């Protein structure tokens, strides 16, 4: 078994050899490490992408908009991922980002995961039928762990999820009521001795 450290170093060096700058290669190394940590096929997808990169043209999307359409060549997942990470504080004002044509969409995942941590919001990522919930770079939730991910995706959505409760007010009240059963009623004498008691607050 390869260690995550080996995976990161090798991915970084391979990215440099594939033509990316050292700074971007460092980001790719961290990204593939993260994918493999979560049991996702980072090494396989990166390897396949680099192989196809030597034969095909890919589009570099540097400035991301709400709706991004590449009619000719698929977008490079690495440059898209880096741009997303760099611009996330601007992009979060959009509710949803759409893309139509991106290669190896799994490789975008770690950049979105880190972006989620930076802005403090969960991010929902969907390409074709694959759905992921990225949770502040702490966890990645997905229904699919088949190990097979598409070499390109046409319908990609990235949604910034607002920080809001995941439950109803009714559920909360019910649970809170139960938690109150751990509290003790204070006597009058205890109330008189509590912090701030007996003093004027206008002193």
């Amino acid at each position, binding site marked *: *078994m*390869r*260690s*995550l*450290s*080996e995976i990161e170093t090798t991915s970084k*060096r391979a990215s440099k050899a594939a033509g*990316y*700058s*050292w*700074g*971007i290669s*460092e*980001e790719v190394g*961290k990204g593939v490490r993260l994918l493999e940590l979560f049991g996702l096929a980072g090494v396989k997808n990166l390897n396949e992408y680099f192989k196809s990169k030597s034969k095909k043209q890919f589009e570099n999307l*540097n*400035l991301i908009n709400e709706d991004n359409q590449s009619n000719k060549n698929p977008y490079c997942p690495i440059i898209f991922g880096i*741009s997303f*990470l*760099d*611009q996330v*504080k*601007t992009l979060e004002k959009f509710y949803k980002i759409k893309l139509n044509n991106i290669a190896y969409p799994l490789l975008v995942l770690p950049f979105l995961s*880190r972006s989620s941590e*930076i802005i403090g919001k969960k991010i929902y990522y969907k390409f074709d039928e694959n759905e992921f919930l990225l949770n502040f770079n702490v966890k990645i939730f997905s229904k699919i762990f088949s190990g097979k991910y598409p070499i390109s995706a046409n319908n990609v959505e990235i949604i910034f999820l607002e920080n809001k409760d995941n439950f109803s007010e009714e559920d909360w009240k019910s649970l809170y009521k139960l938690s109150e059963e751990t509290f003790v009623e204070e006597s009058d004498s205890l109330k008189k001795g509590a912090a701030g008691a007996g003093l004027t607050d206008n002193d």
Partner: protein
Amino acid sequence: MEVKLRDPNVIMKLSRLGSFHQSKLSFLRSFLEEFKDWEYKRDLFDLDENGFGNAIYSFKKKERVYSLICFANKISDDERSDRVIATKWDAAFTLYDGVPSSADIERLKNEVPKQEVGRLSYKELTLSRANKSLRVFNHVVESLSNGKQPDLNLLNKVGYLYRTTAVYGSGKFGLADRFRIKNREEINGPFRLEMMLVYLVRQFTFDQVNHIAKLKNPKLAIKLDPKICKSLGIGNSTGLGMAPFIVNHPTLLNNWILCREKVLKKIREIKKVENDKIDLFKKSLRNSIKNITSWNTENKYQLKKINSLLSNVKKTINFLENKFNFSTEYPFNEIYLWLEQETCDECIEYIVSIMMEPFDEIVKPLVSEMSSEEEKYFSIPTHRTIKDLINIIEKRYPDILKINFNKKENIKNFWFISKNKEEPRYSDRFEEQGSALEQPLAIARDIKKLYEELIVSKNSLTIDKFLFKYSNLRHVVRRAFIIEKFPYAEIQDNTIAEDVVPIDMLRLKLSFFGALKFDPRSDKWLRICMFQGAPLPEELNNYDQQWVYNS
């Protein structure tokens, strides 16, 4: 009185970093302190009459066990090499997480002796190999088997029976990644398990010579005197492989240096120092002279430094004994200011290390601050502006910005990874091939390049937009934002200049390991000794804290 932390632009110069010495903060000393109350055992010792076979040593506390597995092998003299290109060694070692099963030992028997071309698993934490110092090893075996203790003169000249040629950890060759162990209570300082491995290897070397001598001459043989054992350490040959580490781990480097600087600051701020602490400082300083006079090297560069150190330390002792009044307020601040005026860099840093000896209460809490959660600082704050970045660079890299990188002598060398051993190397850009594959270790040059692009960009432009065009500078943009928060994260020198001394980078790291007696064999590799004078495992629960100076 508040003393300021020393200026990173002075302390982080390579010549200064290359003058650092071991101290109470050093990792081998903090390892001993952490593991002093662990149960030490030799679990297996299955060697033949020539000392070949397997052995296992362990440290145990409650449910946690760390086991060193040793494989001693026969190699011919012409196969013995300290160079990283070697493929066979006298002994190979791994530190196993827990108690190894016989299946584990069988598996590791096939992998550990192969070192870089073997495969380890997440159950193994560190990996190493070592070669005998043949002249010492054979002499010791011969003497013991004849019922005599070995010649101390020879032993003192070398200082060890074996020297390691690499110690690996943190996920190399399949070893456990650091994240698996970093939250363990006992791993609260860097390189702790690497230190454990070296320490247990030292004990193996003593047991091995005793064993061979005994089987060679069962009637006459005696054991190596424990006092002599204590005076021996483990040697280490270190090449350039270590140098990029301190460039590639900026926040970690910062934390090592910052802790040292914080300790010094706190000591200088003590208004009145108790007599027992003054006595301990003076005693350690006096005793340390032996460490300097027994420091053997043939390297002219190092000899010059040792001679200067010796005369400056003697001058300091004379000053402290005859001219300095310790009842003066803030005595260590006064001593430090005197050192700055009157002595050399090597001596200043030597005495700064010794100043720490009496102050456990200052040093110990800082040991746990010497690690770093590097991932936390990896992301670039791309919403910041060009102006912000210019300000950071001007503040943090003042001398780097003065270097003219159009001059050949300032870009003379380049760092690369060798194809045959995947090890870092350093070479002349104008004479050797391969500079197109240069590693991103020329930080000074790249920072200057970044600065030149920034000052012709719009001040209000945000970094994300700047990076559209200058993706090639992304690695140094990241560093500049790191150094904003971590002032001691960067070497304030040009690591590709013609006059750079790469072993200064090794010396810095090795001093934090706790190495003694740096013996440069060229400007690119050196030998050192670790644990020389350290307590033996049976003595750990009650040992002399100043063993470095008193042994």
